[in-house]
């Protein structure tokens, strides 16, 4: 029996208002923040997108990838190629990053979906490693040491740095909102319903006619363009591509896994909570260097041992309900006989 606090509807309503308030605060943030703060908030939004995507794969579709950084890197390289080498309109080049990531996800699927469960994690890592090494062999992209984004391209997003930071921020915010809303809708659709059923009981879900493979494929292909777009926006901010930084496993996979595991895997609240916590911790721990990662690693193990559903799992027990409902509540007349 689940514990339900007496004033549960009120608590949940307040939580939702806080969530909406946070979203509104993000909308007006550029008016109040200096470029430094805005840059950090842009990083926050990009990492949130990555966390939402990893959570969709690992928490719902049973695809525990350790190769997520590959698609971020592909997005970065595709953006550079489209904007600088092909001289496309820079906004079109961002879109191209998403498209290229999606195209590369198709052959990657051939390998990834042949591996089950535990093997899949390292298998995706191998694929990511191959893509990173291959990126270092590209002649027009500065080989292994990478290349800077020309000033002219950066200027397209704003003549002065302040304008540019604001433009990049709006792009990141738009991407984060799109990622969040569309993932939420996906999880509430037939696909998400099937995945949730699968998570609870794989055999029963299969027997009820849930097409497991199709749902997992949809999720895998779903994440690729978002990761690619995030890669393009990250490149705009860093103004440089290189195999080591654009395909950084620490920045785009390790941190993301810690964010989702600590925040709460298999919920939409978890990645949000985790990303906020990650940035708070980073502000205090980043100066500690390697201790920062040691602490995050330890924290993630402790969280798994205490509550596999993360901090949100603990909070949810206290709240007694979802702030962002992914499941569908049964209708009040569900199971009752039809009125004669």
């Amino acid at each position, binding site marked *: 029996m689940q514990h339900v606090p007496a004033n549960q509807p009120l608590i949940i309503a307040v939580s939702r208002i806080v969530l909406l308030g946070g979203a509104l605060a993000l909308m007006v943030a550029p008016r109040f923040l200096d470029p430094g703060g805005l840059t950090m908030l842009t990083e926050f939004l990009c990492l949130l997108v990555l966390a939402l995507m990893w959570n969709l794969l*690992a928490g719902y579709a049973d695809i*525990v990838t*350790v190769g997520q950084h590959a698609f971020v890197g592909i997005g970065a390289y595709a953006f550079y190629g489209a904007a600088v080498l092909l001289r496309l309109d820079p906004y079109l080049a961002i879109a191209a990053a998403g498209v290229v990531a999606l195209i590369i996800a198709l052959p990657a699927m*051939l*390998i990834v979906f*042949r591996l089950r*469960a*535990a*093997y899949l*994690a*390292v*298998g995706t*890592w*191998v*694929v990511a*490693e*191959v893509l990173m*090494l*291959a990126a*270092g*062999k590209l002649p027009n992209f500065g080989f*292994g040491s990478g290349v800077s984004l020309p000033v002219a391209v950066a200027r397209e997003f704003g003549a002065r740095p302040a304008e540019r930071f604001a433009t990049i921020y709006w792009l990141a915010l738009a991407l984060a909102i799109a990622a969040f809303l569309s993932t939420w809708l996906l999880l509430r659709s037939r696909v998400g319903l099937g995945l949730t059923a699968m998570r609870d009981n794989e055999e029963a879900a299969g027997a009820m006619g849930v097409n497991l493979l199709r749902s997992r494929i949809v999720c895998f292909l779903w994440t690729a363009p978002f990761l690619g777009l995030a890669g393009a926006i990250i490149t705009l901010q860093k103004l440089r591509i290189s195999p080591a930084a654009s395909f950084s*496993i620490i920045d785009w996979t*390790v941190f993301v*896994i*810690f964010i989702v*595991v600590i925040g709460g*895997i298999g919920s939409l609240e978890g990645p949000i909570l985790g990303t906020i916590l990650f940035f708070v911790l980073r502000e205090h721990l980043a100066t500690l*260097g*390697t*201790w920062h*990662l*040691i602490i*995050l*690693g*330890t924290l*993630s*193990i402790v969280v*798994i*041992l205490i509550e*596999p559903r993360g901090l949100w799992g603990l909070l949810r027990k206290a709240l007694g309900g979802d702030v962002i409902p992914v499941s569908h509540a049964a209708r009040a007349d569900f199971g009752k006989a039809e009125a004669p």
Partner: protein
Amino acid sequence: MVGTYLNLIVQGALLGGLYAIFALGLSLSVGVMRFVNIAHGDFIVLMSFLLLVLSSVLKLNVLLVLPLVIPLAFAAGYVLQRLLLQRVIGDNALLPLLVTFGLSIIVQNGLLQGVGADTRTLSAGALDVASVQIGGLSIGVLPLLTFAVAVALAFGLDWLLYRSRLGAHIRAVTLDVAAADLIGLSSVRVYAIAMGIVGITVAIAACFMGLRMNFDPTSGPSRLLIAFEVVVLGGLGSLRGSLLGGIILGIAQTIGGQIDGAWQTLAGHIVFLTIFLLRPQGLLPRY
């Protein structure tokens, strides 16, 4: 020209012996506990540093330090399984994966903090450069020794798992934990012993890796990827298959490295992916 390639193939196959040692422990932990230990490579690197420190403190050849470290490695594997991994193994394959992922990052950064980012190697004294002439090829004694150890370890573990009493216990627990407990086996203890054996292979892998190649605190993941590729190439659960997988990967890397130094790693990955797509069950599947 033919001589050059024959030489490359022999050197590559010997390198493959080392890769097989990387893979044996991983193969065992995957086969028995049904999860891939993401920290496998980092444990190997951690052990290499331990061997480095001990051999300089005790002023002993690292090959003589290895027998001292082996009981320690068994105990470390046993305790790790008993106290941490045992709590998360079960139906949800996600949890042990994430815990070992956390361990991997902790080990890497702990080493960075403790010993710095410098690249190191182990030395076995005069043995480092000793070589023998076989059929016109000059072959290092150390690679030859590594290969011999790999073969002995693969057949030894195969015997242990499929011919011995302990192996029967381990396989019983692997097949059905509840049934094994019902007939009086302590599954917790059996798992811990199995992980202890993995620890032994890690220590041996660490010794020969350090003698053969450079390592630094962040070398673990690349060793994990090699071990993983060897396990999948050989066929899941097949210890002798690991030997074959290691040899193929070693040859692919050596020939790739000959064409262009930068292609060594990539050539290994590409050969792995190609064989995997053609034969996903591996070359010598056990089941």
